[in-house]
């Protein structure tokens, strides 16, 4: 059985159908890449799945649990965590405080208001663990907003990992990165697949073909094609969509 199944998702903005009966599935341990030209509806789809936008139709099931009617934060608690295309970290806080805030959301209540958080050793340990996982252990005291772009992206991923997700949604993790940073991110994602299944939305074709087990192509809000890398590479319609915009080796 698939770990994650999105069935017939629909989203309309006025007359525009941004997501048109999209169905997707992710198997346990799989990296499923979602590609498509600009304006294909990738970001809308990510927001529908993560619950930041309400869907007009369809259903979402993760690990046997129906998430469709849940708020975004409840979906996270059930194992669906995401990163943001535009890096979304707490810019004025140190890396450590960013991680602590992410960890705190998933261990005990955040309504506690009598105890200093700084006395909670368990949170600090878990934050450190996260830092090691993405390679930020040397930057714990740096203010997040002052870090280079590539490092902030890693922090963004670390924040998403705090939920111990079953499915990780990565929304263009390589966006705006140079080749060196991109390669580091590819290596990081390759390691993360041991912990969670990944739905990867990405423009960088090199990265997609390195990482993905399966690829779905989105165009005008519809799934144009879905299959393994070889199938997608040879698919005539996919080639037509990307002709002149991206080269599929």
């Amino acid at each position: 059985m698939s770990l994650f199944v999105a069935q017939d998702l629909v989203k309309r903005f006025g007359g525009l159908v941004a997501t048109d009966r999209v169905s997707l599935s992710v198997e346990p341990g799989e990296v499923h890449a979602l590609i498509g030209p600009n304006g294909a509806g990738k970001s809308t789809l990510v927001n529908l799945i993560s619950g930041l936008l309400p869907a007009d139709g369809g259903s979402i099931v993760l690990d046997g649990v129906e998430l469709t009617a849940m708020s975004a934060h409840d979906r996270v608690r059930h194992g669906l965590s995401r990163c943001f295309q535009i890096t979304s970290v707490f810019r004025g806080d140190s890396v450590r405080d960013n991680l602590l805030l992410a960890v705190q959301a998933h261990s005990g209540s955040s309504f506690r208001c009598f105890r200093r958080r700084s006395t909670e050793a368990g949170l600090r340990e878990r934050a450190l663990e996260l830092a090691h996982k993405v390679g930020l252990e040397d930057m714990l005291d740096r203010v997040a907003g002052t870090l280079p772009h590539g490092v902030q992206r890693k922090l963004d991923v670390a924040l998403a990992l705090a939920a111990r997700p079953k499915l990780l949604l990565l929304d263009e993790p390589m966006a705006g990165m140079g080749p060196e940073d991109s390669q580091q991110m590819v290596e990081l994602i390759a390691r993360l697949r041991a912990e969670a299944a990944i739905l990867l939305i990405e423009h960088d074709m090199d990265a997609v073909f390195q990482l993905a087990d399966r690829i779905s192509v989105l165009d005008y809000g519809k799934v144009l094609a879905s299959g393994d890398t070889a199938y997608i590479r040879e698919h005539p319609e996919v080639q037509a969509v990307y002709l002149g915009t991206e080269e599929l080796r």
Partner: protein
Amino acid sequence: MSDELHSAAIPSSGGVARWLPWALLVALALLPVVGAQLGLDYYVGFVRRMLIVMIAATSLNFILGYGGMAALGHAGFIGVGAYTVVALVDAGVSSAWTAWGAAVLVSGAFAALIGAVSLRTRGVYFLMITLAFAQMLYYLAVSLSAYGGDDGYGLYSPLELGAGRTTGDAALFFWVVLAIAALVFSFASRAAVSRFGHALTGIRDNETRMEALGYPVYRLKLAAFTGAGALAGLAGALLASHNNFVSPSTMHWTESATLLVMVVLGGLGRRWGAVLGVAVWLVLSEVLKLYTEYWHWPLGLMLIAVVFAAPRGLAGLFDDRSSA
């Protein structure tokens, strides 16, 4: 703004910061004794009122400074607290603790209801809707003819504090207010560095990310708003006992605005911000009143000067000095 807020949130290790609050507490506790000796009873009363306003400002600072909720209806909850005392006294209640406790509960309940609706909105809309609710409460008070309507309601007999003492005992009432204000301040300071406080500042800085991290953003904000409303109601109840009088003007929107100005003046989202803002504002207006009838003028000019010279509030100035 948030960048600066955080760099300053790192506790300064100076010894002054440690003993100053206690020295202040002792000095304030001695005030009624010294004041009686020197015949400065008026000023003891003035400081008592200042402490009460500090409770309200501290609660506003918590939701506005830490939670980023720009509420312009805080005087509404002060009024609900004050009118709860009026209603209970009118019904024959004579215990201060009962009346004040009920004020906390009733204003907390009002805050929960108003917050549940208002917190569906953000920014300017949130400001407008909290203002609208507070004005509704204001007109409700005006229309309550049983409690004097526009003319207000006089509380002719002081409330009982137990052991035969009442709020009419100026020194004792002062100490009670001081103790409550100190407790509220300590609680707010602690809550700001607790899990709850960290979650609130996270929501202020990046609400969408907090939701995506798994935080129940709406419920956290509602909890803060409700708590702040309850504390504002407590301030209102104490104010009713302090003045022995309650009128709808307590909850007029200009009162909410003044409270907001005091908090901004002192330093939004800073531990000492609300306390400092109230002290400076009330002392200045008191002093200026001695010299001129048009005391609003210099006060306004000073406020503009502060906004330019210390955009992070007066508490921000102290942070700079201690870290430099």
